[in-house]
């Protein structure tokens, strides 16, 4: 499972989205494992785009936040801010209900 998220992180990396900036200790630990690559602080992409409503019908957008398994991507990986993560989670759950997104995927 954690491997999924690792994949995801690498994806984000290649898309130039930056890396998570947790507490300093955490950052050091994570940095140590990955050969001292430079990591930027993540910014919430919804805040950057000034998104106020996350529509549950926007499958293309929501798909970015569900890894293969179909789970909701934690914000420590994606860098989404708390408020937007809440809206995002709600939208994903609505989309699941109406069969736009899977509850589980294998």
């Amino acid at each position: 499972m954690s491997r999924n998220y690792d994949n995801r992180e690498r994806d984000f990396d290649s898309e130039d989205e930056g890396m998570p900036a947790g507490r300093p200790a955490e950052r050091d630990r994570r940095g140590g494992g990955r050969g001292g690559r430079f990591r930027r602080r993540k910014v919430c992409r919804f805040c950057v785009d000034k998104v106020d409503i996350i529509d549950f019908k926007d499958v293309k957008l929501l798909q970015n936040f569900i890894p293969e398994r179909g789970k909701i991507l934690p914000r420590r990986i994606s860098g989404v801010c708390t408020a937007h993560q809440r809206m995002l989670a709600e939208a994903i759950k609505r989309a699941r209900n109406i069969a736009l997104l899977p509850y589980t995927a294998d």
Partner: protein
Amino acid sequence: MAENRVYEVVFIVDTDTSDEDLTRLTENLRGIVTDQGGTITKSEVMGRRQLAYKVGRKNEGVYVLFEIEGTGREIAELERRMRVSDQVLRYLTVRVDEDRRRAEKLKARRARKAAKRPFANAASAGGGRAAASSASNESRDNEA
């Protein structure tokens, strides 16, 4: 109820229903809403789509979207009808007026903020302070 509520209703129709049956069904449902005193502000067939999982042994469905303005009573009736109908595989109603109002407010606040600081430069952008305190900004830069 002083103010009307706005709802978004999405429902999935069985792909086995013919085009005319589909229009008849949507017309029917629309009639129910208007009978109950609601108004349909948007009615859109989003089209045939693969379902993310099987619903009643179906893999595909036609998605239809209604945007309804009303008191909430017409929603109850509409949902009851959709539950009974064999052609409607699933439906989802979301109240959107509150979220939209909130979004409007945030938008207005952003506009106000932007108007307040027309000369905001890179130095003061991160601090979230008024442009008037440019002197303190400078000193902060020196420290950093």
